[in-house]
């Protein structure tokens, strides 16, 4: 590291650029969709690369949910869900976009999402398939569901193996099933849009996505080693996630490289998010989009900075899949991606690895209703001497997260001693 330390937080240029790009991209996409071009709504763990290779623009359900939340349209969207006789306290993060379709152009963020031609999801949990069943009942929308097999096997220490050794990490039978379903989906989409899938194009997209993941890995490694934290986690999240939803494009690779270079430059310049950093915190779980200021609100009183979220870390460790057959590699990318985040021992061993690498002093673990076996993750961290605060709430429901700041403050005060 060189140069004098600079504190404070001018926004990361990469984050500002990504956010601006995303809004422009969405408005252009919406315009094209309203002009008749078929678009897709895809869940985060659906095989987006197939849509890209077929030239079908797509919006990611969870990303759109985060926008709805951040624009404070969550309560009205949930009210619309309830008005249809569905529960408004179940799977809010997945259902917000369905509710937002009823808000009207003026109340929905950015003029609203045009009706998608295709809705595509994996069958995660007890309800995702029912939410997407509802999408399929909307006029003009056709739903496709992919299987979501369970994490058997589930090896610890997967992060060093998964990019190349994915057949063993996930098991060939699971990959066979998803690969077969991706092939069926491809055939149906080809028929619907009247275009043939170009396998060479899909291979290029997979290669670009791998390149993007490699930049993310380098960025994550820089941040893990940096003391003090040079970039706010709230800047890292959009700078990683917007390109994630454009995975497989040259723009996304360039965005990931730009983020890496900017982080490296800030480290070289001695930048610190908070000059009095005394406690380093890890945030496990989805982002609290409705209150992003929360992440910075413990700096002055406690010298506590959030140094880690899953978004960069899983982008670094979880996405790369190398292989000669792009459809099979694509199946391997998604067959167990969520398991890496949530299923022990894959999840628990990974969080411990990341916490140690980042020098974390305490962990806030936001446990949504759909988080399996959270206690195993918490126990694994506590066993390594890292205190954990579990907060059971949906990140998409402001009604459930009203006291988060107070609880974190109490946790830091009582259980996270200043390490420096």
């Amino acid at each position, binding site marked *: 590291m060189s140069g004098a330390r600079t504190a404070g937080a001018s926004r990361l240029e990469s984050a500002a650029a990504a956010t601006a790009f995303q809004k422009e991209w969405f408005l252009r996409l919406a315009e094209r969709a309203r002009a008749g071009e078929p678009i897709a709504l895809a869940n985060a763990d659906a095989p987006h690369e197939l849509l890209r290779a077929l030239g079908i623009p797509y919006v990611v359900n969870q990303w759109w949910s985060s926008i709805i939340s951040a624009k404070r349209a969550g309560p009205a969207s949930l009210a619309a869900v309830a008005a*249809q*006789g*569905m*529960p408004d306290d*179940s*799977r809010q993060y997945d259902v917000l976009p369905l509710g937002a379709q009823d808000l009207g152009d003026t109340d929905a963020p950015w003029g609203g999402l045009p009706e998608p031609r295709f809705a595509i999801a994996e*069958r995660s*949990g*007890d*309800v995702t*398939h*029912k*939410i997407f*069943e509802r999408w399929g009942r909307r006029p003009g929308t056709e739903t496709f*569901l992919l*299987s979501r*097999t*369970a*994490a*058997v096997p*589930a090896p610890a220490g997967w992060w060093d193996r998964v990019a190349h050794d994915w057949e063993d990490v996930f098991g060939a*039978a*699971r990959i*066979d*099933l998803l*690969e*077969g*379903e991706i092939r*069926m989906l491809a055939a149906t989409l080809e028929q619907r849009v009247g275009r043939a899938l170009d396998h060479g194009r899909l291979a290029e997209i997979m290669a670009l996505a791998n390149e993007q993941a490699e930049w993310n890995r380098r960025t994550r490694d820089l941040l893990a080693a940096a003391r003090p934290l040079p970039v706010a986690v709230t800047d890292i999240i959009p700078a990683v996630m917007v390109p994630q939803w454009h995975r497989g494009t040259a723009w996304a690779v360039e965005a990931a490289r730009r983020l890496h270079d900017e982080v490296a430059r800030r480290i070289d310049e001695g930048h610190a998010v908070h000059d009095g950093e005394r406690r380093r915190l890890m945030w496990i779980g989805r982002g609290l989009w409705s209150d992003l200021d929360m992440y910075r609100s413990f700096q002055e009183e406690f010298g506590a900075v959030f140094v880690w979220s899953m978004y960069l870390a899983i982008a670094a460790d979880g996405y790369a899949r190398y292989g000669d057959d792009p459809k099979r590699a694509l199946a391997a990318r998604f067959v167990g991606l969520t398991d890496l985040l949530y*299923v*022990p*021992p894959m999840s*628990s061993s990974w969080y411990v690895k990341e916490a140690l690498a980042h020098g974390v002093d305490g962990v806030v673990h936001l*446990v*949504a*209703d*759909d*988080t*399996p*076996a*959270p*206690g*195993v993750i*918490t*126990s694994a961290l506590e066993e390594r001497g890292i205190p954990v605060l579990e907060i*059971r709430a949906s990140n998409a429901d402001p009604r459930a997260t009203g006291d988060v700041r107070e609880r974190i403050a109490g946790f830091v005060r009582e259980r996270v001693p200043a390490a420096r």
Partner: protein
Amino acid sequence: MTTSAPVIGVVGNDVPRQLLLAVGGHPHRLTGSWEGDIDPVAQQLLGATDVAVTRLLTELREEARAVDGLVVCNDSQAHLRLFYVLRATAPELPLHLLDMPRDDSEPARRFARFQLEALAAFCSGLTGRALDDASLADAAVVEAALGDALRRLRVRRRADPPQCSGAGALDAILDAARLAPSEAVSRIDAAQTSVPAGVTRVHMTGSSHPDAAFYRELERDGRCVVVSEDHDTGDAAWLGPAASGATVAEVIEGLIDAHFERVTTSATATSADRVALTREVAQAAGADVVAAVVRDLDEGPLWDLADQRAALEGRPLISVRVTPGAETESARELVRGLVGPAVPA
């Protein structure tokens, strides 16, 4: 099969018992309970999970050796969590996940074949007996006999007046899923009780019932009787189906056919399929009213309610959400709704 056969615990409703019986195993379904202690550690490990499954984990942690091995079905998020937690915390328990796909296709059938073969191999490892044609045929006969007994029970429940209470039927079905096949047939056939004419006939949908406590509370004052249900610990439990074939492979194909033909639990089936089942069974049973009992954190059934209300063609639907500790009060509230002025759907 004798009672000394290795006991194979079964969690969930996807297991073709024929395979377990054919290798000399004793299938024993585990469901948890409506009421009972909850181990705080079990609760912390599972997270936000259907309390019936949290109670089941509590039981398993207390009596880990009550079964010789455990098969858990990936037929709900709660069951899958239970599997993940046991895998992480109970290494001494022989444990297997049955992960059956939901949408019929060639890749799904290939995966289902892999799953059933792996299930048979796990159970063979517990019993020391391999799967063979003759034992599969024998198992098909005894399992089919249980299916016949269940059909007889269904007829008794649908009679007017019913010849078996809902609680009596549910007790018998749950027992049958735990007894040796010949005893199970006797147990089902013995389920006969006198029910007065003119009571409100109820079809039960929503969450599965881990035991008959809720039914008993519902029927306590004699104003209601549960004549049918579509949840998977009652009449929709996968008891009875068996496949015939000249080879092991043919039998497995037959079981895969049967798996894809049935309507599975709410957590895995579409709302459209679930609603069609509710309507068909309630109609066949001559139910006056449909009761949807949904346990807190058992989310699947909640998403079916709107469709159910719309599809029941004049038959009222009364729903109640049950939170832990309020089971009895919820049952009483439901009775008040069932026998009070009905609101047509």
